[in-house]
């Protein structure tokens, strides 16, 4: 089992990287990578929320939705869990760790409508993953997303200094750049079969 857990982690971080291979999370990806600072802040916050909400979703799915055949409500329930958790985290962080909140709070709000955060519990449910497998997927996705954010931010800082043609400045070149990174990440393809 642990081998599978490890495989899931590596696969979701590198080979099936959410941004470069599954094209999810793009809005945040492009939104926060203009500066390294925001990219790092988002990475940290995102990974935390990802793991916790995946665990919550897993328990509710296994112990409530499956027994009562409420599977068809998963969209509503999972987004509800994410939203509720983010709201709770927001409130608690404000009280308990105001400095941390000052640093990371803004990212919390952005996360609610991120597609990866919702995709992970949905995939967990579809694949009937166990608890540890679900955590591995969440952690791997978080790590992969963080990696993508940080690489992208470091490159975009450099791109800031480049003479990009006017029409391509901003998003267009960021898209082309992401395409090139995705091309490089194809090197990982075929390494693990899930």
């Amino acid at each position, binding site marked *: 089992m642990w081998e599978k857990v490890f495989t899931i982690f590596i696969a979701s971080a590198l080979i099936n990287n959410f941004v470069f291979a599954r094209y999810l999370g793009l809005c945040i990806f492009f939104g926060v990578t203009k500066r390294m600072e925001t990219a790092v802040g988002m990475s940290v916050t995102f990974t935390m929320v990802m793991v916790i909400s995946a665990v919550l979703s897993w328990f509710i799915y296994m112990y409530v939705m499956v027994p009562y055949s409420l599977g068809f409500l998963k969209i509503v329930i999972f987004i509800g869990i994410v939203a509720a958790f983010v709201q709770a985290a927001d409130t608690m962080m404000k009280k308990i760790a105001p400095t941390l909140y000052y640093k990371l709070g803004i990212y919390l709000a952005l996360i609610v409508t991120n597609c990866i955060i919702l995709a992970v519990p949905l995939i967990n449910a579809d694949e009937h993953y166990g608890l540890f497998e679900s955590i591995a997927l969440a952690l791997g996705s978080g790590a992969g997303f963080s990696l993508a954010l940080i690489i992208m931010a470091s490159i975009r800082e450099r791109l800031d200094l480049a003479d990009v043609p006017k029409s*391509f400045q901003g998003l267009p070149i960021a898209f082309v750049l992401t395409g090139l990174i995705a091309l490089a990440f194809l*090197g990982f*393809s075929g*390494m693990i079969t899930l």
Partner: protein
Amino acid sequence: MEASPKKEQPAQPNLIVSVGPHVRTEESVQAIMWSVSGALLPATLMAVYYFGMRALSIILVSIVTAIISEAVTQKILKKPVTASDGSAFLTGLLVALNVPSSVSLYIPAVGSFVAIVITKQLFGGLGYNIFNPALIGRAFVLISFPKQMTTYFEPVASIMSADAKTTATPLGILKEDGLARLLEVFHTKSALYGDLFWGNRAGSLGETSVAALLLGAAFLMIKRYITWHIPVTFIATVGALTWIFGGKAGLFTGEALIHLMSGGLIMGAFFMATDYVTGPSIRSAQIVFGVGAGALTALIRLKGGYPEGVMFAILLMNCFAPLLDRRMRSRVFGKAEAKEIRK
């Protein structure tokens, strides 16, 4: 300090005024680029020797496309046209040297076009591209035309022969059928090493002849156009990892030498991973870059679905180069001491 001459004192014999230093190195970007192209001449000649006229036409098409694409894009973007500075030539040459001799001529043309226009000019031109243009060009055509790009001809060592037999590359054989089969094909181990060294094997045009590549690399090292940091760590890492993990009989039984001499490792390590623009510029970061590229190459070759890992390894490390440079900024003279004092 660009003060203009004071008018009340008529300047004496038209003196040139500029900010120092007033002496500059003889070196120029053009000289470097043309020298690197020159260093690839032995490998180019070997390509033509082994793969015949096909190779020559692929090389010409690729270079011409690269130069024209560069000039036309710069014209459209209303930038000074610098297509003759040798960097487009070099990119074109490297694209050609990275495709097999079996391909139709539009493939190197597409490769060069993507290399120059999308990878280089769109990102601001010389010096600003994030990815190695030639390698992106190659990756692009590999994915777009996988069939032709993985069809290799046997070396013919005859300029005129047009129809060659297709065969697998040594790495392909090693991956698909194992070492025993590889030795069968090349008869003996020494014949295998000999053929790998001189380049008498299937593969991309320029990558086959280790001898020719090392000759060019030595020239670049002596001229100090490249340093040891990236190529040596790159090659050493591939050697070590394929030796440790590459064998079927357990740890430390891999045939490292075959891995070092086949595929694009030598060309990649000396001519492509060393591209200034797309690698880190801090020495310590270059070592990390080399080790990382080596580790990824070994990983892809041994674990991935695709027998050849150098191209993807370098492209992946290109992604990390800005991060490495950023994280490993050199220690400013006296910075540590200054911190000490503040405490």
